């Protein structure tokens, strides 16, 4: 391989560097493996090359989206408007006609493009290559932001999507799909999915073009979203939230097995000897107790009381944390959950064993209305109210968990109430979904409360599961 001349090695190293920057642990061993793997496959197929890279470098499915995004940036499927743009003009001439040359950005072109897009998205079988080409055309024509000099022009998926507004095509698509015999609900779902994937293609293409202009390293730094377990709750988009919610139960299950296993192996050495089993096992070895057996120890369990801020600013975070703790309820001896905004409301009843998480979430959302009397978060009042009406929930065996951003709208903080609450339980923790550097800014009472109760930053699923792991020990 004449890597020095082709720049391929540099590109490869930059790619590995970007993967590491994005949090994948690509060691030298994997780096070498990937080159060995590349040496054995043909380079003609981009998909094969990607699979070979993925097989050697990605070791966790959660990292796959990050990997794919970076792969597209460093090894783009096409350059500029793509090889297809020549063919596109022939096709474009037929229907765009009047411009007779490159397609320009104007109202008629927009209308024409939308028609063609609707046509491409319609039909029983989608042509992926064609759609990808259309995404490239869309960014090239409607998303261009010309700059004043070379390297200053840029592309915006946002602008392109705003102008073309593929979401408005949904009704047309639905009508088309229903014409083919799909029922209304099914058609709408399919139409939304198709437009969603097209939107993702447009975003990919804009990223690709920017990478071409400014160099991939720049894009890798700014535009690649973190994988779902590292994504901050507060920054999650609607689709991310759905994906996160699907992650919650598997994550809780993994954590529960890990806990059980660690408890098992930690106790194995210190647990009392099971004399009967050991002697019985020794018969096989002529009475020599070669393997010893130990009595399993009773797992230590915690009474958990969760006190949760459900105001708008932290609603996402609260839902996840409540669901997560709920999914782990067998790890805890008993669990009671309360939500508050300025008034406290018990929601333990919504967490029935075996209940459907979707129902639980909608119930919780409905219950949030009980938690607000005045409608503005007021931690001070919530703590005093809790002390008045639910003090029986706290015992010296209890672990108290408070979830919230500690932003109390400049109201009276009632530290004394929190102090009394924290004093009546075994341990108390406060999970704050804000970045630690923002604590204490504006109306955040994090420093004040942090002095009474240990406050922990918890911004994503990974931090959440780490915390619960420590908690359940």
């Amino acid at each position, binding site marked *: 391989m004449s890597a020095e001349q082709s720049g391929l090695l540099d590109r490869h190293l930059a790619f590995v560097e970007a993967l590491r920057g994005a949090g994948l642990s690509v060691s030298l061993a994997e780096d070498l493996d990937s080159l060995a793997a590349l040496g054995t*496959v043909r380079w003609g197929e981009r*998909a*094969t090359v990607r699979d*070979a890279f993925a097989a050697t470098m*990605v070791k966790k*499915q959660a990292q796959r989206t990050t990997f794919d995004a970076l792969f597209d940036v460093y090894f783009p499927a096409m350059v500029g408007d793509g090889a297809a743009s020549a063919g596109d003009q022939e096709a474009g001439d037929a229907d765009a006609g009047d411009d007779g040359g490159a397609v320009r950005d104007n109202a008629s072109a927009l209308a024409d493009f939308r028609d063609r897009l609707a046509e491409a998205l319609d039909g029983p079988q989608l042509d992926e290559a064609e759609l990808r080409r259309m995404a490239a055309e869309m960014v090239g024509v409607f998303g261009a932001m010309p700059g004043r000099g070379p390297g200053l022009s840029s592309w915006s998926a946002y602008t392109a999507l705003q102008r073309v507004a593929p979401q408005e095509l949904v009704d047309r698509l639905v009508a088309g799909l229903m014409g083919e015999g799909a029922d209304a609900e099914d058609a709408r779902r399919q139409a939304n999915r198709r437009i969603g994937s097209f939107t993702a293609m447009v975003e990919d293409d804009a990223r690709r073009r920017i990478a071409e202009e400014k160099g991939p390293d720049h894009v890798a730094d700014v535009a690649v979203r973190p994988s779902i377990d590292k994504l901050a709750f507060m920054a999650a988009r609607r689709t991310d939230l759905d994906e996160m919610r699907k992650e919650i139960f598997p994550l809780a299950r993994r954590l529960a*097995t890990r806990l059980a*296993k660690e408890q*098992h192996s930690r106790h194995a050495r210190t647990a009392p000897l099971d004399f009967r089993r050991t002697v019985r096992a020794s018969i096989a070895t002529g009475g020599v107790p070669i393997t010893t057996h130990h009595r399993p120890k009773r797992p230590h369990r915690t009474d958990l009381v969760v006190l949760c801020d459900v105001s708008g600013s932290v609603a996402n975070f609260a839902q996840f944390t409540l669901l997560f703790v709920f999914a782990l309820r067998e790890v805890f001896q008993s669990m009671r959950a309360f939500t508050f905004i300025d008034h406290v409301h018990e929601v333990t009843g919504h967490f029935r064993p075996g209940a459907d998480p979707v129902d639980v979430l909608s119930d919780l959302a409905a219950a949030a209305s009980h938690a607000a009397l005045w409608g503005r978060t007021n931690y001070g009042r919530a703590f005093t109210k809790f002390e008045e009406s639910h003090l029986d929930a706290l015992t010296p065996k209890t672990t108290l968990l408070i979830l919230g951003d500690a932003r109390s709208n400049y109201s009276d903080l009632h530290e004394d109430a929190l102090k009394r609450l924290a004093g009546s339980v075994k341990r108390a923790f406060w999970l704050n979904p804000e970045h630690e550097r923002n604590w204490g800014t504006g109306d955040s009472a994090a420093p004040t409360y942090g002095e009474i109760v240990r406050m922990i930053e918890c911004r994503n699923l990974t931090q959440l599961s780490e915390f619960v792991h420590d908690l359940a020990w």
Partner: protein
Amino acid sequence: MNWFDAPADAAARLATAGYLADAATATTTYLAGALEKPLLLEGPAGVGKTELAKAVSRATGAELVRLQCYEGLDEARALYEWNYKKQLLRIQAANAGGSGEGGVDWDATHDDIFSEEFLLTRPLLTAIRRDEPTVLLIDEVDKTDIEVEGLLLEVLSDFQVTIPELGTVAATRRPFVVLTSNASRELSEAVKRRCLYLHIDYPDAARERQILQQQVPGLDDRIAEQLVATVGRLRELELKKAPSIAESVDWARTLIALEIRDLDEKAIADTLGAVLKHQSDHQRAVKELKLARA
């Protein structure tokens, strides 16, 4: 040994062995053979991880050696152990014979009882010692304790095992190693570093239909299409256990057995038990698919 010539060759030969692999699976399987590295498969239960290992063994004519992992699996069950009972008998026999003319002395017996004859090889050692082509399947590796992973490290990186009394046994011919995991526990970085990684997910509709028609003879096109569409719909719901390929195959067999020719709402409601294994999942499916209550 050359396991496969190219990704396309892997795909074709796996297909003749009854396993329809997608492009990523074929490429990674080929690479595992070409680089002689273990292949770690992850993915939801029932998407055909174990099946891939079996298909590789069928496609290449190699013998399959399987190590089923479970909690509490130890070295003695995974690697080798000494046949204590037989050793005891041997010692007693030596003593009994020795009472006459001085008998066999201790040194001879000592060497004798730690020989090949008293060695019970378990899957890992068996796979390493075989001269013929071998596929070693280490199934559900996430179920083991951390300690077993340490054991796997030596086996997977150097393909050799050290037995104190016999010395080091190195593989004359590297087996094709497949590890499967449901990711109920993160495996250690060290194990992952030694392996190629592949996540097998639910197949797309077209491939699933092919799989169904291959696995379930007598399934006509229309019902296969309906079935795949329904299963796809179910996977989109938030279920505790989403149906996988194994379940859709079961479902197809159920429909054949019941001689159901059309998968209408009633048929779905009647046979939902073949696909969904949780009460709350049933309720959710009935609600979302708007089925009449069965």
